[in-house]
């Protein structure tokens, strides 16, 4: 029986496994990497909104700082995107 199972999977070579691992890794990289920036940007927006509701006259400054903070917290997401692209197209 083991022999039969071995015959069934013998069509899969090491290169196939590497290819599959590459795609799975790229998907995981993007999926997990997007969680952090999403939470961080949401928190930044939520707190900026709190501030705007309390002091509407501060809206301009708050919006600017919020966009800046979101751009910085987005960096890790961008890094994981680059790594996913490298995994898919370069490696």
């Amino acid at each position, binding site marked *: 029986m083991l022999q039969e199972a071995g015959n069934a999977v013998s069509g899969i070579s090491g290169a196939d496994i590497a290819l599959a691992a590459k795609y799975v890794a790229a998907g995981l990289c993007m999926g997990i990497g997007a969680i952090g920036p999403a939470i961080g940007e949401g928190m930044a927006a939520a707190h900026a909104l709190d501030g705007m509701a309390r002091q509407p006259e501060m809206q*301009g*400054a708050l919006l*600017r700082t919020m*966009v*800046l903070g979101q*751009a*910085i917290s*987005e*960096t890790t997401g*961008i*890094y994981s*995107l*680059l790594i996913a*692209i490298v995994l*898919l*197209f370069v490696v």
Partner: protein
Amino acid sequence: MFEQLAGLLTHLGEKRIAVLHLGGFEIRFDIMTLIMSWIVILLLVGLALLLRKGLKQPVEEKPSRTQAALDGMIDLLKGQLSDNFASERLAARMFPFVSTLFLYVLLSNWLSVVPYLSSPTQNINITFGLALLVFIMSHVLAVRHKGTRKWLKGFLEPYAFMLPINLVGEIAKPLSHAFRLFGNVLAGTFLVTVIMVKFVPIALPPVLNIIFGLFFGAIQAFVFAILAVAYINVAVEE
């Protein structure tokens, strides 16, 4: 499928590499990126020359339409960028540099909306060059403002053994600055291309192009400029 897509993406950017052999060194030029960035430069210079005609310096009682529109735009840009500088003097001195960066990146990002053209900011070398420009500018300004001794001492703050961490922090700044713009623009192009080629070839791609090209392009250009302001500010700060 991915090879196909990669081929299409390179086709979008028309990766034509010209190689220049110079005394043992090999210098590579990405022709399409060069052409696209020259288009952006010529557009900017052409617009500046064209719009300059309607302007008059001292402002008259009744400004012309061009002057009113441009004044409004410059005021908006000034209000968004200049307030973040530490001092008025620094703001007056650095505003032209930062706003030029902003306009260049903005027009570069918007160029991908036009068919057959691609953003020069899709190329990591362009964004890295811009980030290096900001990096060098901030340190030159820091040396000028604080003096060489104080500038060098800044790397030993708060303690001397923090030097490696400070150095890595300084190097990480232009890296993240460049990767942020490059990654965002590339992701937009990727998404539009994937959807255009694999899913819906009609109706949806233009909408996505507007969202990713125009809207996110403008936001990323603004973020790039405002981060340049922040880096210059941090470097100059006592």
